[in-house]
């Protein structure tokens, strides 16, 4: 992963959802090895911004670019997204889930096992997802970040449903990604205690 000169830049972003202006004139820059923590009240547009970066929501105005990345790929193809929906299939086992996403996203074959360890899921490897608790499912969603190396992580409330030990593990996991030159944009209400983190506070815009 050559991520040393990567830079995520957003220029003058606006987001309109359901006729309501969520935010406008939003600009930021994020250098490799740094995290951006999105804060703000419910409905301030944290999830919308993450989905815009991930290419899952139309960018009403402005543009988002990943400078210094692979010119052949869009921002979305260089990003991992962990949202509110877990994207898990109840009948697939934990390790099958990770192997599938590793294969689909083009990760190395042994990465699935590394991902199991990253979120301490090895004891649950053969268990179908249907039997996992909410916190375990969240850990599996997060373990997906490790199945294929992608420089930009977009995390929407990553610590929801996690116990204290798992939050600590998540923090180490994120710190390691930053240390390797990755970028993280995370929406959170909880202080994750990352070293290289800047805060972007979204304020509620009531357009009507």
């Amino acid at each position, binding site marked *: 992963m050559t991520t040393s000169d990567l830079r995520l830049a957003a220029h003058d972003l606006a987001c309109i959802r359901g006729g309501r202006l969520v935010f406008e004139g939003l600009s930021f820059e994020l250098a490799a090895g740094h995290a951006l923590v999105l804060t703000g009240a419910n409905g301030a547009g944290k999830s919308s911004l993450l989905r815009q970066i*991930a*290419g*899952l*929501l*139309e960018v009403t105005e402005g543009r988002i670019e990943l400078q210094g990345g692979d010119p052949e790929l869009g921002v*979305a*193809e260089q*990003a*991992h*997204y962990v*949202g*509110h*929906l*877990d*994207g*898990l*299939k109840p*009948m*697939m086992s934990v390790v099958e889930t990770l192997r*599938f*996403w590793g*294969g*689909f*996203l*083009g990760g190395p074959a042994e990465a699935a096992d590394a991902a199991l360890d990253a979120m301490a899921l090895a004891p649950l490897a053969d268990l179908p997802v249907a039997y996992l608790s909410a916190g375990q499912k969240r850990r599996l969603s997060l373990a*997906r970040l490790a199945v294929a190396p992608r420089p930009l992580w977009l995390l929407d409330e990553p610590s929801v449903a996690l116990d204290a030990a798992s939050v600590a593990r998540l923090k180490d996991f994120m710190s390691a990604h930053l240390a390797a030159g990755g970028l993280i944009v995370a929406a959170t209400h909880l202080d994750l205690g990352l070293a290289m983190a800047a805060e972007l506070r979204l304020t509620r815009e009531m357009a009507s």
Partner: protein
Amino acid sequence: MRRAFLALLARDIRLAAGMGGGGGMAVLFFLTVVAIVPLGVGPDRPVLELLAPGMLWVGLLLASLLTLDRMFQADVEDGSFDLLSMGPLPLELVAVAKSLAHWVVTGLPLVIAAPVLGILLNLPPATMPYLMLAMLVGTPALSFIGAVGAALTVGVRRGGLLASLLVLPFYIPVLIFGVGAVEAAAGGFEGQAARQALLFLAAITLAAIAIGPLGAAAALRAILR
């Protein structure tokens, strides 16, 4: 890209073939629909023989509609689709993989079940190879055309009904030439007429494979973003 395609195809086949995936359901539905025809029209053999090709094809069309609505919806509802759309595959190829998986799990078992049902409807044994061949050639079109309907109704609760209404008119050419191939074979025109109908079916399937994924991907982009 090939690895991603195969991974998605294998996952979808596994999910659909497993519990609650609805793969086996289509065959049972096909069986039930065709089995109640003799009860409805009476057990008169010549009448059944006359109706057989049409009833088999109509049953096949309805059965393949049954599992259509979940093609994209299941992934959209649980968030998998967000991640799939960020992967290395363009949405068009995601649609190809999903259509292909639908065919393997729904279309192919229906083709295999058809001769058994043909016997039930007193279809002449000589026409069986034509029936199977026509269904083998025609069923992929059902999955690939159906993908467009499934994509268009992805955000609609109980979209299966709407998808059926949208898709059924486009199944009519498959029905006409599918029945045509079997009837021609039954009438002793194995050589020319049956071959023509089969070629038309092949053409429809190829066109569906070429156009269906483009339409499905365009619909998904328009609806989900």
